[in-house]
């Protein structure tokens, strides 16, 4: 079933999803949404890996995806915890107001 669709479309979809995620991550101000955009980027990459792996008849792509999903889960846990702490501290998770690293 997978082979019915040309691989180029998979990569194109992956690229579109990644670009949407990247633009969202840069432009949105709400940390949660930025976070979701990052997840979107990761999943775009996952799609590209799976398609690539299938195309080359290799399991490497699938293995990468497992790792990425694990990392994404961990990141979600840690990231949300950080946001909770930041919210407690500043009563906001608007990224424009979180600029403590300013030089």
């Amino acid at each position, binding site marked *: 079933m997978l082979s019915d669709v040309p691989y180029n479309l998979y990569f194109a979809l992956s690229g579109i999803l990644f670009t949407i995620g990247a633009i969202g991550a*840069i432009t949105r101000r709400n940390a949660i949404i930025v976070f979701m955009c990052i997840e979107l980027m990761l999943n775009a990459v996952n799609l590209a890996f799976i398609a690539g792996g299938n195309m080359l008849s290799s399991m490497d792509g699938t293995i990468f995806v497992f790792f990425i999903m694990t990392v994404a889960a961990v990141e979600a846990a840690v990231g949300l915890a950080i946001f909770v702490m930041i919210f407690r501290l500043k009563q906001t998770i608007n*990224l424009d107001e979180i*600029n*403590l690293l300013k030089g």
Partner: protein
Amino acid sequence: MADYIWLIPVFPAVGFIINGLLGKKTSRTFVAWVACLSIFLSFLVSAAIFYEFLHLPPASRIFEKDIFDWITSGEFSVPIGFRIDALSVIMCLVVTGVGFLIHVYSAGYMHDDAGFARYFTYLNLFVFMMLLLVTGNNLLLMFVGWEGVGLCSYLLIGFWYEKDSASNAGKKAFIVNRIGDFGFLLGIFLLFVSLGSHGVWTLKFSEIQPHAHLLSASVVTLITLLFFVGATGKSAQIPLYVWLPDAMEGPTPVSSLIHAATMVTAGVYMIARLNFLYSMAPDTMFVVALIGALTAMFAASIGFAQYDIKRVLAYSTISQLGFMFVAVGVGAYAAGIFHLMTHAFFKGLLFLGAGSVMHAMSGELDMRNMGGLRKKIPITYVTFFIACLAIAGIPGFSGFFSKDEILWKAFSSGNMVVWLIAAITAGMTAFYMFRLLLSTFHGQCRASEEVKHHIHESPKIMTVPLMILAFLSLVGGYVGVPHILGGENRFEKFLEPVFGPAGHTASASAWNLDFISKAWAGEGAAHNASSELNLMILSVVIAFIGIYIAYLFYIKKPDLPKQFVEKFSGFYHTVHHKYFVDEIYFTLFVRSLLGIGRFLLRVVDERIIDGMVNGTGHLMRGIGSIIRRIETGYVQGYAFGMILGAIIVVGYLIWIG
């Protein structure tokens, strides 16, 4: 015995370590015992070696032992090694003997001082360094001792460091000595290099001596002059004598031991030790003798107008050191060392006596506030009187023999100018010493009632060393009774293995007024004998004239000095202020050096060096203040940067295909 010579310096070193480490925790009695005992043991070893020497033929009266190699470099090596010969054994006996007496005296004198342990630690260190100086068998080890005694001198002058004047005097002594030491060090370098260019890489006396003939006359002259610069610093001669009068800020026994009896004679010892070099350089010899004579007279004249008894004694020391340099300058090394020894006795005694007077007078130093102490402190008075007779050169006392020996040797060597100055100075010596004696011990007591009430003789621990030194001042001269008075001059004979046969004095140099001496002294031996006797009588007459004038001025007509001062007030003023030498030095050297120092501080240090360091900092700060604008703190900005970077990299990779 030869294997044990290293014990001589080691005992005081052990005393120094014990007192230095434990002194604060133990009792004063313990400290005093350790200090005195360590010196006494050294004295015993020295005495044993001396005794053994007497039973050895003169040629084999030399013990030398290298303990270990200190510095080795190719063919050149410097050992830690000791050499005891006739000269160094006498020095050891003087240093440890007089040193021991002064240690004992100090135990009484310093008894109530808070720094008791510190004092004896320094004093033991001093004796150790001094013994290193006189027993070292090479120039480098001698230099270690030379610097070491300078350090101890600094520490002890500034012993009461909470007093500004004392710590300044210490610094002055140290810096002035450093100038001389620089010359000494250059001399060592030059000697080392010039011998080395002949393939002889050594600094050991026993190896320098047989190879000294390799050096050219001009090089030897330069080397010996550089060494003499060192001697003028350490032994307080013109032009570097200025530190010694100020050194009187230290405790009086220190003045006695270091600034009268031992350390200041190091220069004389050094020239005597290197006599084989000096004998090769008649020009240097003349300079030494002339500087010695001029210093003797100059310092004696300043002594006329001082009222502080320790200062009078300090100038007297400078003057007597001048005499010693006259002796070694005319080639009479034995006479110089002889005077060194007798001087150690009577000058050590005079200082200790002065300390005893201070003790009695509640610390008073100005002799205008003294007088009439004769009855109240009889032991001090008698011993002081003996020392005065000895230094004035009254026949029968030790100073007479040694001083006359020097005058005669100066005369017979043909240095008439030097002799004349020295002879006049002998009379001046008698005058200022008796001025001191008479105004301190005779006449009316001018002290305040309160001080007068407290006047008391010092305890036994102080008076016994005085008596022993007085005894030595009385009989110390009899080891060197000249032939003319029926003696054998055993002292000179004992030193013959070091200095060569007696009577072989340096040839007169071109500047000397040779013809006068020939006209006066004649050339025949018989003539010489009678002129020696004549000179002796002459110098005794000069001494008595000096004493009589002092008697006239200070006992018979006490108004005379005042009239004298009024008549020659300008001159008196100049002398009283030590010819303004300190002020001249201050303007010429100190101020210009301070100017250079200020320049280095303000311009080189604060502007250039600090400027470079601070400039680097400012530069970095400037760059940072621009670059930090990139760091906005907005996470999305950073993310944008990353993506932009990724796009550029990927784009580039695609573009290059």
